[in-house]
C-alpha cells in the first residue's frame, strides 16, 4: 500500500492506525522516526534529489526506496528479519506516488516479492488552501489514488470544497472519511488497485489534467489492445498519469493498469463495467480515441 498526501494531511496518523490494526506490516517512511511503533519493522528511506550519497546518477539504477524494498525481501528470505505480509510506503508530502507504482510494475526482480496494493491519498478536508502551495503535486496525488481518505472532517466546517476537488480530478475514486484519525482500516486494505467505475470526460478548470473513459461495446483482440497501449506509451507515455480499467477481450475481461511509461501485464478480471479510464496530463480523449479507431481500422 502506498500512502500519499499533501504536507500535514494526516498520513502519519493514518499509518499509525493501520499499523495498530495490522502489526505484521513493514513500514517505509521518508522521514526518520515519523512512525514510532515498537513492534513493527521500521525501514528508513531517504529519497534524495541529489546524486550522493545514494550512488550517483551515472551508475545507480535503483532509487533508495527500491533498494530498501529489495533489501527487505533479501533479508526476509534469509531469515535476517521477521516476516511481514504487507508493506506500507508513506511518501513524503511532496512526492508523486506514480513512480512507486512504476517501480513495482517495471522491476521484475522486485515484482517477484511485491504486488502493488492500493494507492491511498490522504486529503485534508480543511486544507484546500495548503494544497495551493504546490497544486500540481496535490492534484497528481489525488489523480493517482485508488482510495482517497478525507481526513480531519471533524475540523472542517465545510467538506464540500475538498469533495469537489477530489471529484473533479478523480471522480471514480473510492472515498473514506476519517474523523480524529479513525478510518475503516479493513476497508482500506481490501481496496484493490485499479477500478471498475466509469466516468465521463471531466476537465479540471485551471489544470492540464484530463480525465476520461473509453468504452468498448464489443470484445477486442488482446494483441490489438496491447499494441494500442504500446503505441500510446511510445507517443505520450510521460503524460499518462494513470490508465486503469477493464477491457473485454475474446477470452473475457482483462484488467489494464498503467502509470506513465509502464503497464502491468494484462490480468484476467472477473466482473465489472468494461471501460478504460485515463487520467492524463494534457492528452485529450479525442486524441486517444482517434489512435484507437485508426489502429482498429487497420487491424
Amino acid at each position: 500500500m502506498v500512502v500519499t498526501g499533501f504536507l500535514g494531511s494526516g498520513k502519519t496518523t493514518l499509518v499509525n492506525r493501520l499499523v495498530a490494526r495490522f502489526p505484521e506490516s513493514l513500514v517505509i517512511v521518508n522521514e526518520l522516526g515519523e512512525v514510532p511503533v515498537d513492534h513493527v519493522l521500521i525501514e528508513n528511506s531517504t529519497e534524495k534529489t541529489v546524486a550522493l550519497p545514494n550512488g550517483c546518477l551515472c551508475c545507480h539504477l535503483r532509487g533508495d526506496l527500491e533498494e530498501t524494498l529489495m533489501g527487505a525481501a533479501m533479508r526476509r528470505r534469509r531469515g535476517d528479519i521477521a516476516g511481514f505480509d504487507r508493506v506500507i510506503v508513506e511518501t513524503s508530502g511532496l512526492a508523486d506516488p506514480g513512480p512507486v507504482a512504476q517501480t513495482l510494475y517495471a522491476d521484475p526482480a522486485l515484482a517477484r516479492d511485491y504486488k502493488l496494493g492500493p494507492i491511498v491519498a490522504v486529503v485534508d478536508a480543511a486544507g484546500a488552501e495548503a494544497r495551493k502551495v504546490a497544486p500540481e503535486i496535490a492534484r497528481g496525488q489525488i489523480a493517482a489514488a485508488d482510495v482517497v481518505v478525507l481526513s480531519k472532517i471533524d475540523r472542517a466546517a465545510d467538506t464540500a470544497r475538498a469533495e469537489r476537488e477530489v471529484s473533479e480530478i478523480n471522480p471514480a475514486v473510492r472515498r473514506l472519511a476519517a474523523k480524529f484519525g479513525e478510518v475503516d482500516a479493513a476497508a482500506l486494505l481490501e481496496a484493490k488497485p485499479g477500478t471498475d467505475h466509469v466516468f465521463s470526460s471531466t476537465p479540471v478548470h485551471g489544470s492540464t489534467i484530463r480525465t476520461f473513459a473509453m468504452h468498448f461495446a464489443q470484445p477486442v483482440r488482446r494483441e490489438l489492445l496491447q499494441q494500442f497501449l504500446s503505441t500510446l506509451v511510445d507517443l505520450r507515455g510521460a503524460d499518462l498519469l494513470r490508465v486503469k480499467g477493464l477491457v473485454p477481450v475474446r477470452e473475457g475481461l482483462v484488467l489494464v493498469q498503467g502509470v506513465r511509461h509502464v503497464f502491468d501485464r494484462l490480468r484476467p478480471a472477473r466482473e465489472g463495467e468494461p471501460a478504460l479510464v485515463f487520467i492524463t496530463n494534457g492528452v485529450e480523449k479525442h486524441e486517444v480515441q482517434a489512435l484507437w479507431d485508426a489502429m482498429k481500422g487497420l487491424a
Partner: protein
Amino acid sequence: MKLLAQHTLNGFGGMGEGMSMQLARDGRRVLWLAHESAPKNFTALDVSDPRAPKVIVQTDLPHAQMRSNSLEVAGDLMAVAYQVSKFGLKPAGFELFDVSVPERPKSISFFDASGPHSRGCHQLWFVDGKTVHMACADPELQPRNPKDDQVYRIVDVANPAKPAAVGRWHLPGTMESDDAPPPERLPARFDAGFRAHNTNVYPERPDRCYLAYIDGGIMVLDISDRARPQLVSRWTNSPPYHGFNHTALPLFGRGLLVVSDESVQDNAADWPKLVWLLDARDERHLVSVATLPAPPLDAFKSRGGRFGAHNLHENPPVPGAWRSEDVVLGTFFNGGVRAYDLSDPYAPREIAYFVPPAPERSKTGAIQLNDVFVDDRGIVFTVDRGGGGLYALEMNI
C-alpha cells in the same frame, strides 16, 4: 546484425557493464555477466551455441545496498567489483573467484577498500591473471568532493589468496592531502565527479594505462613503475561538453585512441555524448580528428531512458575475444548497439546496428543497451540495463 537469441536470465535481466568470456577446460564458451543491481551478483551462461544460451550459475549479493557491475575473467580466475551505494558500507572492493568449474565459483579472496569515504570499486580490468587495474576508492585518501572517491588503483594478485595494493594515481587537487588546487567542476547538473572509470592496460604496452576519468578527461599514464604512475598526457572535451569520459581504447597499429563518453541522463538531457577518435601517434599530443556518426538525436531522444554513447568492445587481450583495429562496436542505450568502420579515421562510417524493442515491463519504455562483448566467432553479445538481459547477435561485416 542479426538476432540469434535473447535470454532474460531467469527474470533478472538488468545487467551492468561486466562481460567476459571464459574458454572452459571442457571446451565450453562461458559468458560471465555482472548484474546492474541487487539481488543478483553475477550470472554465467554457456554460449557455445549462441542460438541457445543456457544459464549455468547465478549468484546473490549479500545485501541490496551494493552492486557488482563489473567483472573480468582471466583463465580460471574471475575478479568481481563491489560498489556500495552509501559511503562506509561493506563489502566494498573486489572478490576473486576460482571458476575452473564454472557451475561452482569458489571464493579465493577479497580485497577490502571500504572506508568512510569509499563506495568501493566501480570497474576493473583483469586480463593477465596477475594484476587488477581498477577504479576504486582508497581508504587512505579523503576526497575533497565525495564524488571524486574512486581513483586508479593497481593490485597485484599473482598470489590470488593475498591481493596486494601496489600503486595508485588520482587527479591532483581532488584529495585533501593534495597541494594542487581543486579542479574546476562542471556545472552542477553535469557534475559527475573527477574519478576513474575504465582502466585499460594491454600487452602491447604493459607500461601504459589508458585511463578514463569521468569529468577529468582521459589520461595516458606511464605505469612502468607501478608504485608511482606518472601522467604522460591528458585530453579533455569538457567543458564545453558535459563530461563523463568512460573508456579510452587504444588501437596500437593505427596510432588511434577511441574515447567514449557516457550518457547518464534520461531523454538525452546531457547530449551530446559521443565516441571520439584521437590521433595518438604521439602519445604526448593527443589530437581529436573525428567523432563516430551518432544516431539521429531527434529519432531517439524521446524514446525513453538514456540515449548516447557508453561502452565499447575493448579488444580484451584474452582467448575467445574478437580484436579489431578497423571496426569498433559500442552501445548507445536506446540507440542500440552499433558498429563503425574506422578505415579512414577522418571519416568513420556506421556499418551495422541493432536496436531491439523495449523489453517487457521496461521501466523506461525503451531498450537501454549497456555493454557489448564480441567473441572471436564474430558473435556480438550485448546486455540491457533494464530487464532485457542478454542479446546474442550474428555480425556479418
